């Protein structure tokens, strides 16, 4: 009984081997192929944003790769990090073994990006982040890490300043989603509120996605001038909708996680007139963005997600750096270190949503922050949202 399983086991193993073998013996590097990997959650609850990142990068490669990078075929290799740190690290270790991969665009979650970038750093593989706003991402001072988005600390500060000085808000209730991103922004908003003459009535986190009644009841009873939500639109939309339904009259505000056409779809009238801060300029400001939205819709039959344009820009910067590195290497395939250095040397790059230069840590310098007001509950009019204020802010030096 026990013995008879050896042949079976071996047969199964051989079968698996036979199935996977033919396509999978790329022993050495391919001469004329360069691969760009994306890492983001492609399955699970956060996959909308994660797939948005992958699709943005894919669109960029379709449109730009052949134009910018000559002599090589550029391919995208999508990895699903499942929003889990251990999977992200395993993928990172997996993809560094492929010598053709010279660049990573990712991740969505700072919690995954931080341990994974340790691996990239050990292998000199450049990572350009389209979404991670956690200060720790760049504050570790890794040369391989670059991001095209702003930092939670600055965004919270911009929001608080605008609320206090421009909107003359006197009191605020802050709610966040208990993620590194949402809580990060919310904390910096809280810390900067008193300096701008705003009293913080409450500061609360919640992992709740559907039923905000129990949180909203005490908020309503305190009658704040503004509610600030640190989080992403899918949760914020429901929250704001229920808040208005409860008769709460406060102003609403949030960070760049609000920037999605799904927000009006979910929240309807509730969010008309609310403000959000963002590092992605509106289409009117960056004409490239309007074309991007149209192209994205043409290819994927849906609107881009919040970090899709940033993923496009990350990939675009990566391609430009690749081209520079190839040129510097005399037309040969560059090393990862050369690509990493080329990324850091990008100056004044005009992307879809901003003009990028980077400081020594990899933060955009100066980062441009916009305050935007939502004008309509019609998702189709999302592009017409009003640009209220533009701020150019130098990223802070790393805290030690």
């Amino acid at each position: 009984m026990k013995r008879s399983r050896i042949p079976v086991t071996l047969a199964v193993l051989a079968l698996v081997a036979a199935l996977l073998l033919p396509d999978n013996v790329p022993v050495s590097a391919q001469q004329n192929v360069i691969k760009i990997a994306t890492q983001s959650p492609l399955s699970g609850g956060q996959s909308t944003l994660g797939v948005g990142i992958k699709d943005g990068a894919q669109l960029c490669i379709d449109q730009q790769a052949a134009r910018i990078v000559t002599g090589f075929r550029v391919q995208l290799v999508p990895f699903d990090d499942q929003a889990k740190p251990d999977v992200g690290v395993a993928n990172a270790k997996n993809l560094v073994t492929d010598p053709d991969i010279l660049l990573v665009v990712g991740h969505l979650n700072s919690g995954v990006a931080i341990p994974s970038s340790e691996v990239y750093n050990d292998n000199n593989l450049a990572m350009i982040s389209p979404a991670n706003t956690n200060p720790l991402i760049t504050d570790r001072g890794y040369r391989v890490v670059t991001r095209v988005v702003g930092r939670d600390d600055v965004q919270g500060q911009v929001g608080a300043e605008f609320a206090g000085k421009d909107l003359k808000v006197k009191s605020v209730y802050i709610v966040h989603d208990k993620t590194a991103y949402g809580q990060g922004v919310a904390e910096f908003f809280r810390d900067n509120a008193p300096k701008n003459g705003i009293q913080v009535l409450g500061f609360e986190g919640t992992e709740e996605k559907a039923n905000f009644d129990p949180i909203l009841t005490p908020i309503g009873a305190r009658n704040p001038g503004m509610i600030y939500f640190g989080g992403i639109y899918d949760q914020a939309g429901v929250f704001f909708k229920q808040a208005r339904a409860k008769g709460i009259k406060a102003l609403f505000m949030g960070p760049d996680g609000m920037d999605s056409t799904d927000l009006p779809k979910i929240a309807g009238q509730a969010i008309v007139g609310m403000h959000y801060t963002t590092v992605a300029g509106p289409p009117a400001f960056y004409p490239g963005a309007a074309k991007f939205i149209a192209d994205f819709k043409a290819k994927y039959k849906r609107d881009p997600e919040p970090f899709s344009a940033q993923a496009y820009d990350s990939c675009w910067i990566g391609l430009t750096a690749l081209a520079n590195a190839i040129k510097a290497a005399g037309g040969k395939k560059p090393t990862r270190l050369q690509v990493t250095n080329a990324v850091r040397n990008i100056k004044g790059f005009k992307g879809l949503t901003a003009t990028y230069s980077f400081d020594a840590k990899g933060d955009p310098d100066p980062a441009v922050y916009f305050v935007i007001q939502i004008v309509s509950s019609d998702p189709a009019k999302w592009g017409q949202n009003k640009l209220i204020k533009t701020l150019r802010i130098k990223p802070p030096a790393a805290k030690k």
Partner: protein
Amino acid sequence: MEWDILIRIFPQVLVDGVTLGFVYALIALGYTMVYGVLEMINFAHSEIFVMGAFVGAEVLLIMQASGALGSIPALPLLVIVLAAGMAAAGGLAVAVERVAYRPLRGAPRLVPLISAIGVSFFLQDAIRLTESLWRNAFFLTYPTIAFFDERIRLVATVDISVKSLTLIAVSILMLVGLSLFVGRTKLGKAIRAVAEDQATAGLMGINVNGMISLTFLIGGMMGGAAGALFGVQYGTINPYTGFIPGIKAFTAAVLGGIGNIPGAMLGGVVLGLLESFAASYMSLLSGGAFGAEYKDIFAFSMLILILIFRPRGLLGEVVREKL
């Protein structure tokens, strides 16, 4: 500390807690029915709940696209949405049982549990796949129906939305109906007999497989109704929505005494109230040191406490040990 706020919001929190509690209660019914008959945790029930929510949303969205939404009065609309959600979810539950659980009858208890987890993973992504192909989006938003969003003022500081009231009314109707069905009808008796002893029930000429399918059908329909009501109540759904309510509802079922129908209802309402009060009052009572984020800790601690003193749940009877 702000005592006046504390007292002022009390009735409102109570109302909201009861509403939430009935959502849990409806989902908990699916767990408790299946558990009562098969002694297995139907882990895929949360996806069956989501199925109901998605079908409900699709019905409303298709009506909206065709312009029929405005012309149908609110109550028939609700009936249509509920019926569609219940039919789809009930059918799915029966299919899942047939494919993934029936072949495992007689295996140790944990085996169907793992199968259920597999089904749950599969269904989540299957729903996502279908919706992505069909609508190119899998976060769906329920269209707003003005009638349900109206709020009725109970007293000066307390109001309740029509949809919450509807939810509570539908839940109570279903719970009572189900209790009567299981307790009074012949089919209900057969189900109870199967739950008691499958082999003997079989010998008595009861179609055991049929009764088990029926159990899944009813549990699934309750889950589907809960899904559609959940969608109307809270607005947005995605294929992974079911996970948290699923865990909570399962907790509620255990809290009330698993396998027990009134227990599921009581457990749901108790859990809903615990959660609501914790979320509303934690921050006030602790002066901001602990906030709403601790509500689950509070709810689960209470659960542990209750189970320490009543190890069979609130209404669970002391069953004989299976020896």
